[in-house]
């Protein structure tokens, strides 16, 4: 069992190297890490506020003297960008809630109740998290066509919920396993039934874990591309990733880089905010989901 990284486990860092080396090398390494992670994003942000002349300039302009918001105005004016945002938000939120609603009870059952075939189910759930979506898309396409779900949020909500249920089960199961068993036993002694105990004792305790899984699900649903590209054909119902990708496709001859950069910045802002707020939970969730099982 692997302990989760948490604020409690701070001072485990080994320092085998001499202090002097560490003083020079470490800051350099940190700067490299920051540069690696941020440079492409910063370049895109910079592009989004440059004038068209500066964007096309060769050699590149790194420190523009003129700034403009025209690209941001353009994406909202020429395209239903607010609709895209709303669509992404609705689809991601609904599938996140559904996913927790469906995944958490399943996780509890797998963590606490003795069920025949439990190991097999867990193994299947784990393998499923590894399937690329392209394997599902042909079958889902048929379902969407047969049920007439094209251009309906449900065409995205159902697969998004499903593709995140395995992770939810894995993460929540590991949280349930960490909860002391006594808690439930004493609750049972006090005459709580399984359902009551679940609703009144366990769920409140697991709110932090729910938030962790919820964030991971939300991010994954916000970012999904393949299903959104295939199942939504009406402009007003498109989600952010598809809509932005199609801005780039809009002109094979002359790509509107300014508006594209602005759209990228706007489309990623909600996620940047999530990461800033919940960095620790994301890390916990990812490690629990991947390393457990």
């Amino acid at each position: 069992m692997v302990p989760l990284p948490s604020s409690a486990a701070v001072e485990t860092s080994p320092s085998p190297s001499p202090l002097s080396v560490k003083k020079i090398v470490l800051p350099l390494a940190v700067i490299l890490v920051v540069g690696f992670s941020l440079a492409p994003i910063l370049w895109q942000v910079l592009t989004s506020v440059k004038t068209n002349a500066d964007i096309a300039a060769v050699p590149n302009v790194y420190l523009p003297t003129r700034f403009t918001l025209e690209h941001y105005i353009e994406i909202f004016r020429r395209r239903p960008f607010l609709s895209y945002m709303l669509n992404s938000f609705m689809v991601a939120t609904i599938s996140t809630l559904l996913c927790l609603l469906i995944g958490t009870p399943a996780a509890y059952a797998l963590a606490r109740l003795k069920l025949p075939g439990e190991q097999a189910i867990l193994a299947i759930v784990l393998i499923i998290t590894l399937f690329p979506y392209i394997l599902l898309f042909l079958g889902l396409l048929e379902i969407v066509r047969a049920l007439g779900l094209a251009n309906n949020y449900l065409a995205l909500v159902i697969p998004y919920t499903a593709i995140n249920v395995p992770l939810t089960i894995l993460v929540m199961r590991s949280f349930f396993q960490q909860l002391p068993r006594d808690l439930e036993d004493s609750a049972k002694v006090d005459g709580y039934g399984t359902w009551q105990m679940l609703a009144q004792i366990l769920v409140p305790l697991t709110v932090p874990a729910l938030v962790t899984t919820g964030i991971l699900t939300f991010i994954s649903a916000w970012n999904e591309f393949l299903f959104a590209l295939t199942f939504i054909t009406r402009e007003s119902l498109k989600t952010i990733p598809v809509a932005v990708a199609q801005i780039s496709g809009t002109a094979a001859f002359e790509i509107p880089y300014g508006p594209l950069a602005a759209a990228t910045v706007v489309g990623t802002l909600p996620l940047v905010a999530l990461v800033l707020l919940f960095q620790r939970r994301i890390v916990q969730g990812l490690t629990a989901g991947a390393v457990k099982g």
Partner: protein
Amino acid sequence: MSSTLETRERRTGWLLLAPALILLALVYAYPIARSLWLSLFNQNLGTELQPVFTGLDNYVRMSGDGRFWQSILNTSVFTVASVLIELVIGMGIALVLNQSFPGRGAIRTIAILPWALPTALIGTTWAWIFNDQAGIVNDILLRLGLIETGINWLGNPLPALLSVIVADVWKTTPFISILLLAGLQSIPGDLYEAHAIDGASPWQSFRQITLPLLMPQILVATLFRFAQAFGIFDLIQVMTSGGPGGATETVSIYIYATVMRYLDFGYGAALVVVTFVVLVLVMAIAAFFLSKVRAATGDR
């Protein structure tokens, strides 16, 4: 008494599991089973989209389909290259983030940022970075005097493959760093101290302590990344759409084109089935090694 309790618990358990299992069956099991069935039919524009049973014809056709083999090759090169590079860089980042320094929390946040951003949008960002006219990569290389004229990165086969690998490495390295960092934090510090007293260099401690103890995490990360990279779609669709001339066409891109552009459902289904089988085989091999390593390093 206890047996009724057990049956009740069981019933509750299945009830709790049922919605999840039904959903997974609908979205995972059905499509794959359906593809298996459909792959035995010819259902395309030639049959006016009506299914006609043809047995294994689609698989025979696949064996002589140069484009399919090309896409398998592209996918393999892409997967192996990006996962290997990510492991190296991800390990480096994890080692850095495992040190204690002021502002470590903020740096960790920054380091996982690429992972959280939408791949499709990141694709447009990298396409801009590798742009042949005003892209920053060409600009930097020109300024450094490494090239004399701009490279048409996305317009030539090898540079295009390199570009999508770079973009993927950037996007998914944080995932590996996070997993490896969790592993690093579980290695007790006194192991290193004892080793250092024995006169071992940092490199030796890395080789002899860190790597072996980190092996489970490395394998898990590799397994996850392998599966994800093998199914890569959005990044490549946005950056190159598989071009130029199919040089970056992965299996996913080919399947998508076969179904959505050619409307060749039967053949698309056969492609899905073969991809599925390949993936399961590789996963089984990886899982085998994983269990061996786990057995070797104790209960982890």
